[in-house]
């Protein structure tokens, strides 16, 4: 292949990998939105906390395969906690206070991290080698491969659980119609709590696979939340695997425009895509159109 095209493909692949990371974080938005019609604007902070929990667990001598579930438990607890303190009351009162409250919890997490771990970016230790892999002239690292496998694996597992486990089906029922679900004996409150815990665990998991690529620091959260939310909105908040396509497209577009137009232009195409998607398909590119029967 011509070196020029090879460079473009390399940039697109690198961006696509980051896009998978955005999709994984966006998946957390989707989970809580499905069950309780609310999202956590502090999702990026949960990713960061998951990464820091991972570093801390590695620091006390745990191997990587134990660090990841450990961080996910921390994430699940945090997700559950946020729903309990910040979201439930606001939704009960039928107001939009949860938007502010989830942002506040996120900011609180940010300050705590700065005070506990400091503001420095630090590497996330991983068991695989640092050498790059070569695939027909396109190079990528084991850590990037871990993002791709991790994101797809995590989403597949949760989607399977939604379809084939009792708890998953209950969450789906609540998502479809909370009142009808209650009549069938499903505690919708528990179903919503569960979805927030799973969302938190997914965010923490994201932290443990993104950390090795980007390094871990308190500032990693802000950009992630925004990008992931864009992906969730472009794809549609009920789009399932549509997120992956939107995420990969956004990541690749960012990298390509940074490469072609200069690094200052990285963010521009993502924003243009977001505006276009909202104008042309407000329900999301892969979202279902909601027909309101009157």
């Amino acid at each position, binding site marked *: 292949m011509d070196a020029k095209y090879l460079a473009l493909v390399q*940039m697109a692949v690198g961006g696509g990998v980051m896009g998978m990371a955005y999709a994984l974080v966006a998946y957390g938005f989707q989970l809580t939105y499905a069950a309780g019609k609310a999202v956590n604007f502090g999702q990026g902070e949960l990713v960061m906390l998951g990464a820091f929990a991972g570093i801390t667990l590695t620091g006390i001598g745990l191997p990587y395969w134990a660090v990841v579930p450990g961080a996910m438990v921390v994430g699940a607890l945090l997700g559950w906690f946020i729903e309990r303190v910040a979201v439930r009351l606001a939704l009960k009162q039928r107001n939009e206070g949860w938007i502010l409250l989830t942002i506040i919890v996120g900011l609180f997490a940010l300050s705590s991290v700065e005070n506990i771990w400091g*503001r420095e970016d630090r590497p996330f230790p991983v068991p695989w080698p640092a050498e*790059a892999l070569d695939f027909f002239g396109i190079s990528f690292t084991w850590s990037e491969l871990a993002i791709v496998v991790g994101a797809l694996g995590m989403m597949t597992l949760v989607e399977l659980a939604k379809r084939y486990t009792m708890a998953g089906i209950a969450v789906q029922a609540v998502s479809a119609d909370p009142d009808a679900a209650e009549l069938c004996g499903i505690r919708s409150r528990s179903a919503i709590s569960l979805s927030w815990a799973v969302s938190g665990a997914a965010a923490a998991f994201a932290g443990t696979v993104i950390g090795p690529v980007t*390094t871990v620091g308190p500032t990693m959260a802000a950009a992630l939340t925004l990008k992931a939310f864009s992906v969730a909105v472009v794809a549609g908040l009920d789009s399932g695997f549509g997120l992956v396509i939107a995420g990969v497209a956004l990541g690749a577009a960012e990298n390509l425009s940074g490469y072609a137009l200069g690094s200052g232009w990285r963010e521009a195409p993502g924003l243009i895509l977001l505006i276009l998607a909202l104008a042309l398909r407000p329900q999301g590119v892969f979202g279902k159109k909601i027909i309101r029967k009157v």
Partner: protein
Amino acid sequence: MKASRSVVAFLIATSFSPVAMAADVVKIALTGPFSGGSAPMGVSMRDGAKLAFSEINQRGGIIVGGKKMKVELIERDDEGKNDRGALVAQEISSMGDVSAVIGTVNTGVAVMGDKYYVEKGIVKIISPAAGSLSLTQWSKAGVKDLPIFRFAAHDGIQAQMVVEKALMLGLSKVAVLHDATNYGVSGRDDLIAQINRQGGKLKVVAVEKFAIGDKDMTGQLIKAKAAGAQAILIWGIGPEMAAVASGKEKLGFRVPMIGGWTLSMSNFIDTAGASGNGTLMPQTFIEDESIARAKPFIQAYHKAYGVAKIPSPVSAAQGYDAALLLAEAIHEAGSTSPAKIKLSLENLTVTVKGAIADWKKPWSKWNPSNVETHEAFRRANTVMGKVQNGRVVLANPAEKFVLQGTGTK
């Protein structure tokens, strides 16, 4: 009510009048980024200076006009941010009883903040910020009387050494990578100016920038690689340069990386890991106890702060020596007045034995057309360092004599 309150405030202010207090202490401010990406440099500089002042205080203080005065330190974190740095400078310069300031890591902070010190005539020794702009801004403005001094190998010297090294390695094509801050941009200009000055034998085949916080440098590196660069000349700070090192590894682009002294920052060395090995940068100090002059300082620092490795050895040693020089200047001035301290810094009579060199009249009277008058370091004080397995060592062990030597210019 309002009037009575201000009367009370006045009474409180005068009853604890600084007249009695100020007679006993010399107030010196230490400023720098003690948090954020530049923190390894800021913290090491601060701790190096504190080590010197605590040794001085243990001996009873600085002898000023025949009387021993203890040093009292004021510390301010500028977070490496220009606007925060400007606020810190405003605060310190309006305190009224601060004799001098040591600090600043980020050139942008010096550019934004130092005007407040210049207005009030407060003495500042810049260390370890190396960007040329922090002194050239005053020569461009034609300032006649400057209380700002530098104690760091400025980027002019560093760029010269980087280009010399590239030529010594027999290279002909290089890529210049830099961050988008004042430091990175002025470093890029210094590099290109040096390449021209050294006969234009190096061809710059790519100039690429990156932003603070960027983690993915593949784009810039692909362009450098495609253009046939045989080395990366780089100006930035630790975290982003580590991303460049790992990007190089990923692309299998195994060319030398040579750049500013910030490549010795712990957050470069630790984050880059094995991919940082072999990176070259100018150093004024190497944490190597086999250098007799450096050994006592290295041991004292390790003991005082309970570490086995100084986060930024250059910053720490420069902080230490700058503090010793400032103390000597205050002693020779026989006064805590900034104006007198400035004069004696320009005319130091005693040779100060530091951790880096024996400093014999490091500065002279400010001349706007020659910034070297307020620069302490020369090319002859500086060596090339190399990253090797998590530490910085001498790139050329034969250069050890430079760091042992007397260092007079």
